[in-house]
């Protein structure tokens, strides 16, 4: 099964031996064998990081009034960015945890950077609930602390659930990721030439030596963590969706949200996986480790998730009508025809229209095209979040209070700044840590009998 058959390419192409695998992957890090434009790309991202810092300073100095928000639409891009990033984070955990449980062999070579992507996305997401606050410096009041002014969090508020969910999600992802890294860190430790590198990876590797006893326990707990991460990942975005569902605002108060948010998360998540993986496998010429099969499967999952999302749109509209509530109906009509209509239709055409291209294998296997589609979906999903956030309150119960918000430069400054920071982190990760799981690829090679 060496030569990939046309209709289902192999998860691993060609023959390998262990030194070769660990060598190739390790050398990206140790040998600093980086593609030509790596640092230029990183520099671009870094400029965006500076933009983020500037925007945040401005925001803190001037206040959230610098954003486009107003009465009645007091939530804006800070919330939609938050939901968007959290969503992106989901694919990583899904690939690494769910596919691990389902024993999907093709997860092996992409789970590492997918998990890293999760971490960075969650890190970005974690910024926004704080930046969103009118008085960000008091965000810790959401925590139960033994202070002298006697305040407890108001546990019924979905924002507190968010806080718990995001914190848990970030921590668990980190542990899971680090645990997966342990053996590979050991590999790097032993391959490292320079003393600093040895120390760096050595300390991180905790003295891992691959003892059979260790492997035994390791396997068990790694699977358990995966089993924990799976309900967690579902719960997290469900809770995020409760921020809206919990409210009585028309367009928020809808039971379809939890599943539809999770599906949306996967859609945008896999879109982001592709957005990163396609350039990655090309730039680092690991096309034989990250094969067409991976791309193909990711695309298929996107279609699946995308269809659920489309169903979400549909049922949202349907139930708005079916409820017979004038408020819901008006809101829905206004969403499609009102001031935000252009955004709404762009969103539909991207998330439901463009997505359908992925039904065709030729398109799924055409990397540039697939990349373009993935980016389009990312944009579409951001717009979706923004629409959900703003259209409800802009057309709620009392027409006298109807109004729209605008978008200030600051909104964009922070959004693009966060995107830049995210990719900067991805670049650093690729430079410092093995972006592909060495031991699992080796295991895979072993199982698939692709050892020279």
């Amino acid at each position, binding site marked *: 099964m060496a030569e990939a058959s046309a209709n289902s390419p192999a998860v691993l192409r060609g023959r390998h031996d262990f030194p070769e695998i660990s060598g190739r992957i390790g050398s990206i890090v140790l040998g600093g064998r980086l593609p030509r434009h790596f640092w230029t790309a990183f520099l671009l991202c870094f400029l965006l990081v500076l933009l983020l810092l*500037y925007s945040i300073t401005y925001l803190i100095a*001037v206040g959230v009034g610098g954003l486009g*928000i107003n009465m009645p639409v007091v939530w804006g891009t800070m919330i939609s960015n938050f939901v968007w990033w959290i969503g992106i984070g989901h694919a990583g955990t899904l690939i690494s945890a769910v596919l691990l449980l389902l024993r999907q062999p093709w997860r092996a070579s992409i789970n590492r950077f997918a998990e890293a992507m999760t971490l960075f996305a969650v890190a970005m997401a974690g910024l926004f609930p704080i930046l969103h606050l*009118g008085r960000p410096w008091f965000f810790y*009041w959401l925590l139960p602390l033994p202070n002298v002014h006697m305040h407890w969090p108001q546990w019924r*508020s979905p924002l507190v659930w968010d806080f718990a969910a995001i914190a848990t999600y970030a921590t668990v992802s980190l542990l899971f990721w680090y645990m997966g890294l342990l053996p590979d860190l050991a590999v790097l430790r032993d391959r490292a030439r320079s003393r600093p590198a040895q120390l760096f990876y050595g300390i991180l590797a905790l003295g891992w030596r691959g003892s059979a006893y260790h492997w035994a326990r390791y396997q068990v707990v790694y699977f358990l963590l995966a089993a924990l991460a799976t309900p967690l990942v579902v719960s997290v975005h469900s809770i995020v969706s409760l921020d809206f569902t919990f409210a009585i605002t028309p367009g928020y108060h809808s039971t379809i949200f939890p599943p539809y948010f999770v599906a949306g998360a996967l859609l945008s998540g896999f879109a982001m996986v592709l957005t990163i993986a396609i350039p990655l496998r090309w730039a680092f010429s690991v096309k034989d480790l990250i094969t067409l099969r991976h791309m193909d499967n990711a695309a298929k999952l996107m279609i699946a998730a995308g269809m659920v999302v489309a169903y979400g749109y549909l049922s949202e509209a349907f139930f708005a009508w079916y409820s017979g509530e004038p408020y819901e109906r008006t809101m829905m009509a206004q969403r499609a025809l009102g001031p935000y209509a252009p955004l709404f239709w762009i969103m539909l055409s991207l998330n439901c229209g463009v997505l359908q291209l992925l039904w065709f294998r030729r398109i799924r296997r055409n990397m540039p095209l697939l990349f373009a589609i993935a980016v389009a979906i990312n944009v579409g999903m951001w717009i979706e979040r923004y629409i959900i956030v703003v259209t409800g309150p802009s057309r709620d119960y009392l027409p006298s209070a*109807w109004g729209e918000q605008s978008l200030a*430069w600051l909104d964009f400054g922070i959004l693009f700044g966060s995107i830049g920071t995210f990719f900067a982190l991805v670049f650093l990760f690729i430079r410092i840590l093995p972006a592909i799981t060495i031991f699992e690829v080796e295991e895979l090679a072993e199982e698939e009998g692709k050892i020279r």
Partner: protein
Amino acid sequence: MSAIADRPGSAIDIEALRKRLAHGGEMWRSLDEIAGAADFRRFVEAEFPAIAERLPAKPNRRTLLKLMGASLSLAGLAACSRAENIVPYVRQPEILVPGKPVYYATTLSSDGFGIGAIVESHEGRPTKIEGNPDHPASRGATDAVMQAAVLTLFDPDRSHTPLKDGQPASYGDFLKTMAGLVSRWTASQGQGGALLVEATTSPTLAAQLGALRTRYPRLKLYRHDPLAMPAAMEASRTLFGSALTPVYRFDRAETIVSLDADFLGEGPGRHAYARDFAARRRVRDPSDRMSRLYAVESTPTITGAAADHRLAIKPSDVEAVAAGLNAALTGQTGASGSPADQALMTVLVDDLKAAGRNALVIAGAQQSAFVHAVALAANAKLGALGNTVELTEPPDSLSVDGDLGALREAIGDGAVDTVVALGANPLHTGPANLDMRKAFSGLNLLVHHGLYRDETAFLAHWHVPAAHELESWSDIRAYDGSTSLVQPLITPLYDGKTAHQLLAVLGGGFEADPLSLIRQHWTQLDDDAWRKALRDGVMADSAAKPVSVTVSPDLAGLKPAAKAGSGIDVRFVADPWLRDGRFANASWLQELPRPLTKIVWGNAALVSPATAERLKIGNGEVVNIASNGADVDAPAWIVPGHPDETITLSFGFGRKVGSVAALSQGYDAFHLRRGSEWFAAGAAIAPRGNSVRVITTQHHQAMEGRAIVRHASLDAFRRNPDFVRKNAPPVPTESLYPDWPYDEEAWAMAIDLSACIGCMACVSACQAENNIAPVGPEECERGREMHWLRVDRYYAGPLDAPDTFFQPVPCMHCEKAPCEVVCPVNATVHTHDGLNAQVYNRCIGTRYCSQNCPYKVRRFNFLDHQSFDKDDAGPEQGAHNPNVSIRSRGVMEKCTYCVQRISAKRIQAQIENRDIADGEVVTACQQACPTQAITFGDRNKKDAKVVREKSAPQNYALLEELNTRPRTTYLGKISNPNGKLAKPGEATDG
């Protein structure tokens, strides 16, 4: 979806950031325009050196706004530092206990007429104006302008020092000049001298003027009152030979016909009239009766909105309607040509006849003598004269040598070379064609006495700062002639002088003390009577006695004046808050939405939908209005129910002097005015093509078929008393959650939509009571205004003759509050007495509560509107209520049911170990309301007034289908249209 095109600079410098924040392009245009003007430059340098430096650049709007918007903290959240100075008195006044407010009765002037007020004063600092229940013109009610008195008092833009040719000078020098003048006048018997006064009813002032004229027989006296409405006098002079003014008794009126009279919104008697009018329309039971109002009007007013039948016509057609009415009543035929359709007229006349002596026909104050004559004749014919209308000596009668025009001529032909202007600002409010600037420039001596360094002040040789009415001793008469005293709440902040002092100076009394000037005039009052007058705020039975008259049926030959001209009629109105522009520097008033248009920080030219369609103009599109020789550019604004082929222009805007006034936009309608007229026929309107922003606080006018304002006709109500339940969503009966017990008090509010006339007094009272920050035009444009209480205005029915509904929307204080459950930090929670408390110092600004508030009554401090630094806080902080926290940036706020007042009363009651009595706690909005539409109290008290109100059949809760269990409920609006007329829009919008 317009991103604000505003690029950040490179350096991260907070001040720079603040500056760049949200400055609009045109915002500063007005200032830049005048930046060159020498007098403005002088004004700025004298007043705001800091700004003067910045002028070429774009100034920092927000510091400016702080400079004058009443926005600075007395109780700043930031003042938690340990080293804080506390300062005791040196000699503590007897009556004064620190921490306890003191209340004084005084009288505020409204276009020269007195309205009684009770002023709350903290440690000698007047902070809040309330109406004086004993004063006939107030009856306990206030309005926006009165509320803003404390703000104008502490306005740092006020004139601080005398100016000589625009340069700061000493009052002593001024007195020297005056001494010279006095000796000259004594020699020449006042030859060439002229006094220019504005509308006044002060007996003392009248006496002083009289004395001056006897002292200087050749001294001339002119009165310039841009808002004068002399027609009523003319009419009564022609009819009865003597000037008499009508006083209406709405408490007796059953059928009211208003010929273009805005008796609820305009005129010195408006509060009393509104009170009586509403009282006759208070329906709680199918058996109750209610009066009926027919309103004919030439511009949309709140009176028209309150009317049962409304007819909007061109101003020039009102006389025709009047003629028709006269004919119908006097039984002549030939009511032809009346623009009112016959059906309406016959029904109207029948109703009038049926009402007999309880009928009331009112002529609009701006209307011609003929209309007034018709009204008088009609009332006489119906026997209403002496019953619903009483004629009295006008309180403001003052024998003068003429108006501004006359003065202009006198100056022109050299008869006058010295003018002393008291308060008036003719350079801004004078008719453009008079060109007072030129006239005044030619004078030997021009003395100006006023609160602000206004246009006239800069031209004058001498300007003397006037004392604010809260700083002055004076006396004043109300619409019905009753006299009351004006006593100072605080010694003049900027050493201002009262008009009485200035007149005394002209009479040689250079050292005259403001109190004794008044006291001398009232020698007939012994000290007890004097003290009583001060305490009560009004002199007992000082009201003018009604005069009995007979009206000749032929109207003494008065004929319709205006000929129904071709082209478009211009209807001038005074801005409801800024009046002739004298209050243009009060940010509260600038930012208070106009009752019908909800426009803030500017004015627009109001036109009807049909006219707009014909002229192909939309909201905000600039049109050029040209009328006899002059023209002005103004943004158009389409108002449903506006008479066709008519355009309404309002005075008071286009001021360039004063930092707040400079912020606002708008045109100066005085440019178009020729004399003191209120209409101009045959105006030409040309769209300019460009459009400017007009800032409004309500963008959607229709109820979208939702049961928001529930209304019915009286007949419908009688047939079906609980009409509010009809075709409204069903009310959930039970909740998933067990009911929370409220066994102490349970505060609740009832708002009677039939009584609400949309006058906005409640909103301004709320702003004054709760230290609500004005935010300025940009922020308002972004929909970030801070008013805790808003008055929604909805239209229903046909576009050209819609029903207008007002609905005050404060916080509903829901028992199942959606806002509370979503707050992550317990910043908004319920109290034992059912208040939906908002804890500012706990709030971190997630804004989730507002997101989840179906009524959208919460307000958020998007920016740093209120500074806490007491040192750089301007004098405005003096106007702040020390019992209400100043909210910082990033904090949510909202209506608290005036919790500080509740707490005060509870503490008092608990000290006395008793329950809080019903009616003891009065919210600011309730207290200000002229029609007593708002009732507040303890729902657990069986006999409480609020319980009685809520037990009315038409009581309903806004959006009650959401089961939020609001404590604030509404009494559905009941109107009383004549069944014989199918009222448009009656069926719609249940």
